[in-house]
């Protein structure tokens, strides 16, 4: 997201808008990317993002090849650079990479000629998630500029939060982050956000609430003592949401831990746009594939 300009972002969102229509057709497929090949290289497990990219590629008639950590030779000790050179030899048009190390797509991009799309790297960035979030907000609110957004949860270890913050700030939204101090990154203000630790205060007058998934595997009893306590003090519930604006929308990148960061009734309730995010995700990824392959080779999205 760091590398995208405001006009880049607008172009991607506008393109997604026009591609949205394809998904509502009876035959949800156009021949735009026929003969193009896309490698889905998922070095870290992911069902949703991977499925979303696959769906996007298929709707544009591109050929896709999926590699995951378990069936790639990464497990046999091959380095990322070796893998990159092997992928390059197949001459794909785009490589979509998900990796557990921050910066891995940068390393890959140095060794391949094809376009590289970052589908999430470590705790660094998740730009396609941020774009689909911006897209969802724009569709629901008609604008992004001037909106007040709060992101609640483990900001420090969230690539979604990092990319969302960059994207929202670029598009002129006000961003507040909230959560236990153990989950607020050092020098958070340098990201251009306001820090309000207590969600009850942070939610006040907000147009958009973004909840983050609590990574059970991440916290080893050091960032917070228990899910029970987390849900009481930092989870979103009917009481808390009252201080937000009346027309607030609730977003979540999924998968949801119901009853932990958000109660089930809110996730399924009228404020929730969580399922819209999923369908918008396909449109955004279609737009990216279309723009990257249609554009010059070697463009990267990060």
């Amino acid at each position: 997201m760091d590398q995208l300009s405001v006009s880049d972002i607008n172009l991607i969102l506008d393109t997604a808008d026009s591609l949205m229509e394809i998904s509502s057709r009876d035959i949800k497929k156009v021949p735009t990317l026929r003969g193009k090949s896309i490698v889905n290289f998922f070095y870290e497990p992911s069902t949703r993002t991977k499925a979303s990219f696959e769906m996007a590629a298929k709707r544009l008639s591109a050929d896709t090849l999926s590699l995951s950590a378990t069936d790639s030779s990464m497990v046999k000790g091959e380095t990322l650079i070796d893998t990159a050179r092997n992928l390059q030899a197949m001459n794909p048009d785009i490589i979509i990479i998900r990796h557990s190390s921050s910066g891995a797509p940068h390393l890959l991009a140095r060794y391949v000629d094809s376009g590289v799309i970052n589908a999430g790297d470590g705790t660094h960035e998740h730009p396609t998630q941020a774009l689909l979030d911006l897209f969802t907000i724009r569709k629901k609110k008609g604008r992004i500029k001037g909106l007040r957004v709060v992101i609640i949860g483990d900001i420090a270890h969230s690539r979604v939060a990092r990319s969302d913050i960059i994207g929202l700030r670029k598009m002129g939204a006000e961003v507040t982050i909230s959560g236990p101090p153990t989950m607020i990154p050092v020098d958070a203000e340098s990201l251009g956000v306001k820090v309000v630790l207590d969600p009850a205060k942070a939610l006040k007058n907000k147009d958009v609430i973004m909840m983050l998934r609590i990574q059970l595997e991440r916290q080893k009893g050091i960032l917070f003592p228990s899910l029970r306590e987390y849900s009481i003090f930092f989870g979103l519930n009917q009481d808390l949401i009252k201080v937000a604006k009346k027309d607030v929308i609730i977003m979540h990148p999924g998968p949801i831990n119901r009853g932990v960061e958000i109660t089930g009734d809110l996730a399924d309730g009228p404020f929730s746009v969580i399922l819209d995010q999923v369908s918008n995700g396909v449109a955004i990824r279609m737009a990216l594939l279309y723009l990257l392959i249609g554009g010059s080779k070697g463009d990267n999205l990060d």
Partner: protein
Amino acid sequence: MITWIKGGELVDPRKGEKKKLDIVIKRGKIEGLLPPGEFNPTNDMDVKIIDASGMIITPGLIDMHVHFREPGEEYKETIATGSQAAATGGFTAVACMPNTSPINDSRSVTEFILERARKANLIRVYPVAAISMGSRSELLTEFGDLKQAGAVAVSDDGRPVTNSELMRRALEYAWFFNLPVISHCQDFDLSNNGVMHEGAISTQLGLQGIPAASEEIMVAREILLAKLTGYPVHIAHVSTEGSVKFIRQAKEEGIPVTAETAPHYFSLDHTAVIGFDTNAKMYPPLREPKDAEAIKRGLSEGVIDVIATDHAPHSEIEKDVEFDKAAFGIIGLETALPLTLALVREGVVDLSTAIAKLSYNPASILSIKGGTLEEGKEADLTIIDLNNEYVIEKDSFKSKSHNSPFIGQKMKGKAMLTMVGGRIVWESDEFNPRS
């Protein structure tokens, strides 16, 4: 044979002066330091003349913190290639940290290192032995035996002593053998998974941070233990403002503490990591501009006694990987001198002080030869061209590895000739002494 170095200006940090003097060397020792024109060899004398006009001559540089990787990781560096890199950088002596494989915690490893150094036959290589067996913070190594075998100091560099009681006893026991104790300050719990300095840049890049406090807690501990025991401790590679503050305060209170920093801590800051450059990854990590400023102040005020490189070679196998998987460390022997000379031009320290931190001070801390140019002493010296400008090239390193964040950068100041015991061990192509 006599070697006559003429025309150069001597910088002897011990005397703190810069003076035009000719050096006459015989049987590896400095026979005379004479005002120009005073040495008049007769025709029957076999004299090699080195014309050092326009150059400065300093005591041979001494690096008290290097990793030569032998035994165990010879694909990264050997004592021979490391010595070559040292000589090229102007160094006549180095102290090798014990975190080899096996760790230097026994007489046999110490003797092996010295044997390899003898075979390389370039510079003086001084082994530093481990404080604890296997650097596991459990049992002390045999300090007396190691000292007799040739170790000049003890340190658990890379795997710091986690047990404060053991560290206390190490300071006490080492004193009996006059062995300096060098501490790599890192609280492993606090820095555990960190890969760079914790701050705005780690937040921006989504990389796990190593807080400054991870170093400072241990610096404070070592100072308190030095105070408790009354015995000295040397703090390795100081990188933070807080560490400088603690050391300054300790020195003011008369606590026996000395300290070193490395050139990258005053030449770079954490922004070098942007773009995920693994050559900007080392421990301690590159800190913030305010830390680099504090390091400079520490150098100028004498809080930091020594500039050492922490020369840590790694191959592409360890460095051309994802940032969080990359090894910590960079090479430094061939860039330390110009980076230090930049401080002189900046006015942070004067030339004599800079040279002291690269020779006299480490020699005194380790009680080894060198660090001064005096009649009757070994002829270990470096001839430096302060004005030579060049760009650091990846392929130009004598070190077996080239993991340097300074590749592509412009440098000024270069060792033109390095002499150990009267023997030339490095001479630049650009330097043509008439003989």
